[in-house]
């Protein structure tokens, strides 16, 4: 007996019946939700008896140079199944997402952490503060463009599958 992972197609089919128009696109790994419908969809997934995703296992963000993704791993303890849900944040200057703390209290600290390291603001979060770094720390350290290394090298690799347009890395000049 082991945990059943919901495939993205199965998940999309289920969710589109539950909350229509909440899915933006379906990929091989995961299903992408519409940010406006995020809280409603999550609430429905938690409360529906067939899905019963009562436990938010993991919440983290990732930076793909041109966009952010926030990844939710939600699971059901009764049915022993888990699903991966993603949301895209396209606005790099002012990334905003609705908070899911009203659905799962456990998102509190994880959203704070994502805000602290990526700068993604979660709306309606009860107390969105930086937790690991101090208030007023310049920049968002886990973003890919946060630091440039000497010699023009950048953290991470310069190629990523599926990223067509990549912002030109700023050139580091040594005086």
């Amino acid at each position, binding site marked *: *007996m*082991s945990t059943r992972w919901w495939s993205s197609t199965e998940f999309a089919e289920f969710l589109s019946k539950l909350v229509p128009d909440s899915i933006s696109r379906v990929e091989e790994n995961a299903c992408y939700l519409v940010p406006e419908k995020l809280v409603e969809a999550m609430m429905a997934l938690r409360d529906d008896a067939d899905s019963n995703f*009562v436990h938010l296992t*993991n919440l983290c963000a990732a930076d793909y140079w041109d966009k952010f993704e926030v990844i939710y791993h939600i699971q059901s303890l009764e049915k022993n199944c888990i699903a991966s849900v993603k949301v895209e944040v396209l606005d790099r200057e002012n990334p905003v997402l609705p908070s899911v703390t009203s659905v*799962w209290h*456990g998102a509190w600290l994880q959203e704070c952490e994502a805000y602290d390291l990526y700068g993604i603001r979660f709306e309606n979060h009860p107390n969105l503060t930086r937790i690991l770094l101090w208030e007023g720390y310049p920049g968002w350290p886990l973003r890919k463009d946060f630091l440039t290394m000497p010699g023009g090298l950048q953290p991470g690799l310069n190629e990523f*599958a599926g990223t067509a347009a990549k912002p030109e890395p700023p050139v580091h000049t040594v005086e």
Partner: protein
Amino acid sequence: MSEIVKTEPFVMNIGPQHPSTHGVFRVKVTVDGEQITDAEMVIGYLHRSMEKLAEERTYTQNIPFTDRTDYLSSMSNNLGYCLAVEKLGGLSVPARGQAIRVIMAELQRLASHCMGAGAFANDTGAWQTPVMWFNRERERILDIFEMTSGARLTCNYMRIGGVAFELRSGFEEAVRNLLPRLQQTIADGQELLAENEIFIARARDVAVVSPETAIGASLTGPMLRGSGVAWDIRKADPYSGYEKYDFQIPIGYKGDAYDRFTVRLEEMRQSIKIVEQALDDLPGGPHSTEVPLAFRPPAGEAYARIESPRGELGYYLISDGGPSPFRFHIRPPSLINLSVLKEMTVGASVADAIIALGSVDIVVGEIDR
């Protein structure tokens, strides 16, 4: 006292330099008399930006980082990370390697719970004695780690595709000699602490977390099981061959600090059972598969999780096909278990807040990473 006379509320810092915060962890509490009216935790004193650093290093080079997150259970952390990379790269581990991993992870759970139970007893005011008794046994487990991997605390023993070295000769005998001693220590802890009237008076009905709150707040590990929720990754989502072993999940009655303590003690007994079974049928063969040093998994993502001593330890990796991870995320059980700190402490007295904090069994290295 505060019932009768309204005193000035004042803000008090518990930590970062405090005997009972188990590291540089700080709780800012607002106190009215002895009663806590507000609690806010301040963390980040030990932040080393591991997730950023890991994006610079190859997959193999990242294993030592995982030692240093939860420094009381480095073997479990190694295991979780290696599982994630193997899932990402589609690698398999030989049977012997899996069994060795299980033995190490369970010994690590014993060592970590020794520390957790002892420190919790220290928080209740049993002045140093339980912590020293449990630490004596923990030292013996660390001796075995030293014998196997050369290091006591940050073992760095697991590798992608298996474990680093073959077991030394005499390993099995050493572990078999150790287990009865551990049983004895656990029995002592049960008798002298869990059945001690003062300990019961202090720990019972303190820091109660209801099962609904526990599930909603994403708690895992002994915190969740103490609240009566039967959830253990080793049973629910077996990894590394845990489905072969016979063990049970201990769950509590009410979700108070006492339940968490007894759940930890019982988990130690179950761990001993697992180690015995794993030693009994330790398969032969290689301990590891050959994996290139600069391992390049195909592009994609993987989320692997294990039951670490503190709860569900997850590693979320995104690969872009290069030699180092594009995104390296740790799901830290210690941090997420602290979500209910406010629920546990507000309304309690300062002494109970210390008990509540001790029953979470945090490791600050993992909270701050």
